[in-house]
C-alpha cells in the first residue's frame, strides 16, 4: 500500500468511519468555498479609519518600524532622500518594477538612483509598495508577483515601503478578503506564490534572550505613509 493510502486509511480507521460520503464532503466543500471569519479582536475593528491609521502607526513604531507621514505621492522622493541621508545610507535603491511606483515623480530627486528588478546580494536599500497593512499589530502585507519580487523584502539591509493610508485595514482577515477579491477579479488565477506579513525589522533573541535587530533580514524597516486615507477609498469599497 502506498504511504498516502496507508495514512488516509489509518486516519479513517482511527475515526471509525470510511471516506466521507458525498453529502458530508459537500458541507465541508461549501465551508471552504466561503470561509467564515472567526473571532476578530475589537482593538482595530472598533475604530474608525483615521483611528485605525493611528493604531497602525503606533503598533508599527512599537516594534521598531520607523514611519514618516507625507501628504501626497509627490512628496515621497524627498522623504526617501531625507531618510537615506539621515541614516547615512547610499542613494542607490533596488525597487520593485511595480507600476504603482511609477506614479511617484522620482526624476525630481536625480540623486536617487533606482534600479528596478529583484534584489541581489549586494543591494543595500530596497524599496517596495505594499498590498495592504493591518492596524491590529502594525503589520505590512506584501504579495509576490512579476512586479513584486520577494527578495527585495529580505536581502537589503534597509527596506523602505511606500504605503497609502487608505491601504490600512483593521485585521488580517480584511487582508485575506482583499486578496480573494483580487483573485476573483483576475479570473481565479492569481493566488500569489508568497504573502509576506512583516511586523518590524528582522530580529533575534537567540543569544541570552536579548533582542538584536537585523538577524538575517533588514536591520531597518521604514514606511513612508502617504495621505490620511480619508478621501481615497469610498466606504463601499472597504473589505468587511
Amino acid at each position, binding site marked *: 500500500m502506498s504511504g498516502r493510502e496507508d495514512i488516509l486509511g489509518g486516519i479513517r480507521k482511527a475515526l471509525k468511519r470510511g471516506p466521507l460520503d458525498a453529502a458530508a464532503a459537500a458541507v465541508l466543500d461549501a465551508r471552504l468555498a466561503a470561509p467564515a471569519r472567526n473571532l476578530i479582536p475589537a482593538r482595530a475593528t472598533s475604530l474608525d479609519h483615521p483611528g485605525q491609521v493611528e493604531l497602525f502607526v503606533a503598533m508599527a513604531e512599537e516594534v521598531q518600524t520607523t514611519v514618516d507621514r507625507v501628504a501626497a505621492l509627490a512628496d515621497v522622493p524627498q522623504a526617501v532622500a531625507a531618510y537615506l541621508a539621515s541614516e547615512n545610507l547610499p542613494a542607490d535603491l533596488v525597487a520593485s518594477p511595480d507600476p504603482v511606483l511609477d506614479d511617484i515623480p522620482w526624476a525630481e530627486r536625480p540623486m536617487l538612483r533606482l534600479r528596478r528588478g529583484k534584489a541581489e546580494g549586494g543591494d543595500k536599500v530596497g524599496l517596495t509598495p505594499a498590498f495592504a497593512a493591518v492596524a491590529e499589530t502594525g503589520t505590512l502585507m506584501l504579495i509576490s508577483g512579476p512586479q513584486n519580487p*520577494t527578495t527585495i523584502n529580505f536581502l537589503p539591509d534597509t527596506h523602505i515601503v511606500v504605503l497609502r493610508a487608505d491601504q490600512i485595514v483593521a485585521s488580517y482577515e480584511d487582508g485575506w478578503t482583499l486578496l480573494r477579491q483580487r483573485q476573483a477579479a483576475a479570473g481565479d488565477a492569481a493566488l500569489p506564490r508568497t504573502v509576506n506579513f512583516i511586523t518590524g525589522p528582522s530580529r533575534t533573541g537567540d543569544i541570552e534572550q536579548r533582542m538584536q535587530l537585523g538577524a538575517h533580514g533588514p536591520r531597518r524597516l521604514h514606511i513612508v505613509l502617504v495621505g490620511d486615507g480619508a478621501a481615497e477609498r469610498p466606504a463601499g469599497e472597504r473589505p468587511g
Partner: protein
Amino acid sequence: MQPTSHAFKANVDKALGDATLQTALGLAMLGFGPKRRSAVERLPEFEALREEGRRIKNQTLEHLDYYLETFERNVTRWGGKVHWCRTPGEAREAVLAICRSVDAKTVTKGKSMIAEEIALNDFLEENKITPVETDLGEYIIQLRHEPPSHLIAPAFHLLKEQVADVFRSSHTELDPARSLVEPRVLCDEAREILRPKFLAADVGITGANCLVAETGSSIIVTNEGNGDLTQTLPKIHIVLASLEKIVPTLEDATTILRLLARSATGQEFSTYTTMSTGPRRDGDLDGPEQYHVILLDNGRSAMLGTEFQDMLRCIRCAACINHCPVFSAVGGHAYGWVYPGPMGSVLTPKLVGVAEAGHLPNASTFCGRCESVCPVKIPLPKMMRHWREREFEQKLSPAPYRFGLSAWAFLATRPALYQALTGVAMRVLAAFGKRRGHFRSLPLAGGWTSVRDMPAPQGRSFQSLWAERQKAKAGR
C-alpha cells in the same frame, strides 16, 4: 537524533550539577512568563481565542482525511507536490531524492522540529549533502554538535561566552584576536557568515506552522527572516510538516497565529509570517522553481481516537515549557529527545516508545500551569497521568514509582531536584497564584491540595524568611 530519554534520571542529575547551564536557565527563564502575561493582558479576547483555537483544531481533526486530501489537491493545482511519509525513514528518503534530483551540494534550513524528529542533518551528511542551519540559535548548536534544548529558543541553554568560543573555533577565516564580547557582534558575525550560504544553497528546507487546506499553502513564522531567505533563494523549497499542522482556511490559520506569537515570545505578532503556495509563477523574478511538502505521520494518525488525541492540537508554542518548574530546573537536554517539557513528556513516549521515554511523564509537579497557559487548552497533566497508568500496567516502573505515587516518588527520591523545584516553584508560583491568593493544586503535594486550597506563598521560602528574622532579632 538518538533519544536518551531512558537516561532521564541521570540527565536530570547532570543538569542540576551544571553551573553554566543553571546560570543560563536562570537568565532565560525569567523573561518568558512576564512577556507572555503582558501580551495576553493586552488582548481582552485572548481567552475566547484559546477556545476558538481549540475548536478549530478539534473540528479539523474530525475530518483530517478530508482536509489533507483537499490540501494536496490545492498544492498540486499551484504546481507543488505532496509526499506522504509514514515514517521518519520515508521522509528522509523523500528529501534525499529531491536533493539528488538537482545534484544538491548544500541545503539551507529554517527552523524545523520535524527535521530534528527525523534526524535529517546526520542523514544528509551521510549522503554527502551539507545542511546549513540558518536560524541563529540552530546555527550555534549545529556548530556545537548538540541538539536544541527548547522549541523556539534552541540555544537558550548557552551563555554568550560559549557562543563566542564556538564562533572563534569555527570561523577560522576571521581574525582570531577579534572581540566577541557583545551579542550584537556575534549576531553580525553570523549574518556575515551565513549570507553567502543562503545565496549558494541548492535547496531550502523549512518547517511549517500551519498548512492551509483551502489554498494548499504552508505558513511559517520567524523573527530573523532566515526562513524567507531559505525558501526564496534556492531552486527548490521543501516544507517539512507533520500532518496535524493542517487547518481548513486562511481565517483559521489567522486565529492560530494570533495565539502563537503571544504564547511563544509574548510578541503581538512574529516579525515575519509567510504564506507560500507552490513554486514561482510565470513571470516571477524570484522564488523557487519547485515546491515540495513532506507530510509526515510518524504515529500521529494512530493518536486519533485515543486519550492522546488532544495532543494533536499542539501548535508548538512552548508556553507549557516556559512555565514548567521542572523544565526551569533542568533545561531541555535532560528530556533526552527533540521535544522537552510538558508537551514532550506527553509526545515523546508516543513517538519513540514507552520503553525509551516512559520516565518523562513522571517529571511533573502537577502544578497545572502548562495546561493553564496552553493556547489550545491541551490537558497536559491529565495525559501525563494516562501515561503513568499505562506504564504501571506494563510494569515498566520500578517499585517506588507504582501505586499512583510515581511523580512524587520521582521527585522525592532526587533531593537536588526537589530542592531546585521548591526554589523555582516558590518564585514562579507566587507570581502565578497572586491573583487568586490560593492554589487549587500545589506542586509536590498534588494529593493533598486536590481536596483543599493552599494559601499562595508570598514569594519567599521559609528558609529565607527565617534567616531574615534571625538577622532582625540579632539587630534589635
